[in-house]
């Protein structure tokens, strides 16, 4: 991370940018004396922590299901998954690695191409720029015009997938309101509806935050009504656009909260599956 100690250092962008021959010769990268580095540093630490945790859990391939809860990292579980966790079949049962790796590209792609996350990681990881009016350390810049960043334009494709994932996570949440009562004659678990535990509560919070994030997406806002030139001719889509605009105003907040809630639900189910504690049942 850049720090205020780096103020006096010269860099490529200093010579080609604020230190260029026509500009006022101030001589430093920035004159900002506030703690401008705190926000990108925080983002870097939290995102990096999440990446480490998610990578470990995605490759672990175990402790992701504890009836009736399925970790969001593994949902839908389409590989060679444990008994009871594959509500949508196992079309990839031949897949040799963790089942999470089959589906994680969709939520990962959605968040990596998200307009908010782009802002956050361009600032925190790529320092482009590290903060407003703080010169970036790169000598050249082409933005999102070339490979690979031109693929950021695929965000809406990942949004389509994220809606499907959201529906599946909603399904997982609904079926968490069951309790395993035993196994049937063929060895499959049997469930009874109308029960709830702490896991269900966490999953409800998670799925609400996931939908708040998914529906507040800028691409969703565009598709639902933003692309129109005549709001007046499309009153229903205009209404949808106004609702989504409200969610969109808090997109960054939901991006962070849903990131935490996903990790928390996974951690909780990990603990249950590993036998560290039991699920407190409310009814």
């Amino acid at each position, binding site marked *: 991370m850049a720090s205020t100690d780096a103020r006096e250092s010269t860099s490529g962008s200093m010579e080609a940018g604020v230190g260029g021959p026509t500009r006022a010769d101030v001589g430093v990268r920035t004159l900002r004396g506030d703690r401008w580095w705190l926000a990108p540093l925080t983002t870097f630490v939290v995102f990096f922590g999440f990446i480490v945790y998610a990578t470990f859990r995605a490759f672990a391939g175990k402790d992701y299901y504890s009836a009736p809860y399925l970790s969001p990292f593994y949902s839908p579980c389409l590989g060679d998954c444990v008994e009871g966790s594959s509500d949508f079949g196992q079309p990839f049962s031949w897949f040799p690695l963790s089942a999470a790796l089959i589906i994680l590209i969709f939520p990962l792609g959605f968040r990596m191409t998200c307009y908010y996350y782009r802002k956050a990681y361009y600032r925190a990881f790529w320092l482009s720029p590290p903060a407003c009016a703080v010169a970036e350390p790169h000598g050249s810049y082409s933005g999102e*015009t070339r490979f690979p960043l031109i693929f950021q334009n695929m965000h809406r494709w990942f949004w389509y997938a994220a809606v499907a994932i959201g529906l599946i996570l909603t399904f997982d949440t609904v079926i968490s309101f069951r309790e395993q009562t035993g196994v049937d004659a063929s060895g499959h678990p049997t469930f009874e509806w109308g029960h709830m535990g702490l896991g269900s509560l966490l999953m409800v919070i998670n799925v609400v935050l996931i939908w708040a994030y998914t529906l507040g997406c*800028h691409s969703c*806002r565009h598709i639902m009504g933003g692309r129109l030139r*005549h709001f007046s001719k499309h009153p229903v889509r205009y209404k949808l656009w106004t609702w989504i605009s409200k969610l969109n105003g808090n997109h960054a907040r939901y991006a962070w909260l849903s990131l935490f809630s996903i990790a928390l639900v996974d951690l909780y189910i990990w603990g249950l599956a590993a036998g560290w504690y039991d699920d407190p049942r409310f009814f």
Partner: protein
Amino acid sequence: MGYRLKMKLWRGDKSGGELKDYEVDVSEGEVVLDAIHRVQAEQAGDLAVRWNCKAGKCGSCSAEINGKPRLMCMCRLSDFEEDETITVTPMRTFPVVRDLVTDVTFNYEKAAELPSFSPPPRDADGKRRMAQVDVERGQEFRKCIECFLCQNVCHVVRDHEDNKPAFAGPRFFIRYAELDMHPLDTNDRRELAQGAAGIGMCNITKCCTEVCPEGIKITDNAIIPMKERVVDKKYDPLVWLGSKIGIRNKDTESRVPAKQGKAGHIKRPAH
């Protein structure tokens, strides 16, 4: 209650310059521009500073105060501690003319390159009509006072002089978006926004929104919607297919691709 304010002001021109120390008496309720005027009146009669309305509406007194792009007339001294030194430099993205004055011709050239509003023929009664809800949509963008703080803070040109010919900047992406959302405009600006205006260069790090003194949500309401419109045009096969088989609505019909305007008549000041 008045006090003695310590300031550092950048003095110089394109051949060089430095931060010079000043001390000036200031009073309660004053803004940075008041202090600069007092320095100019009492200590440095040759201090160059551009200003006009002193009310945050003309967009003339843009500068960088303690490193942050702000309007000098809207920056209250009460935002700072009384013993804090306030440093004022000119905007660091544009060529410096002298002291706190920069040459912002770049922005007028970019404005000239932007195709103007092109309405369709009038209705039979000689009028043109649009619904109130469609009028209201563009009002946020019309609050722009052209202070060019967003253009100044944008790292695409601030940190990379070579990007200036190919990048219009946030202020003009607002205009692109406003016109592209306009029900009566017959120009299709999407290809131009991506090509000549270089909207793909923007990596939506939102500094333009952070510095806008009018509080315009430049990134969320103009740049990202314009990027999405470019995606409609170039990167979404579903949209392409829908248009081909006629199930997409006809919202974009009767528009023709806009051509880039010419900026040759814009004169740069001699300095």
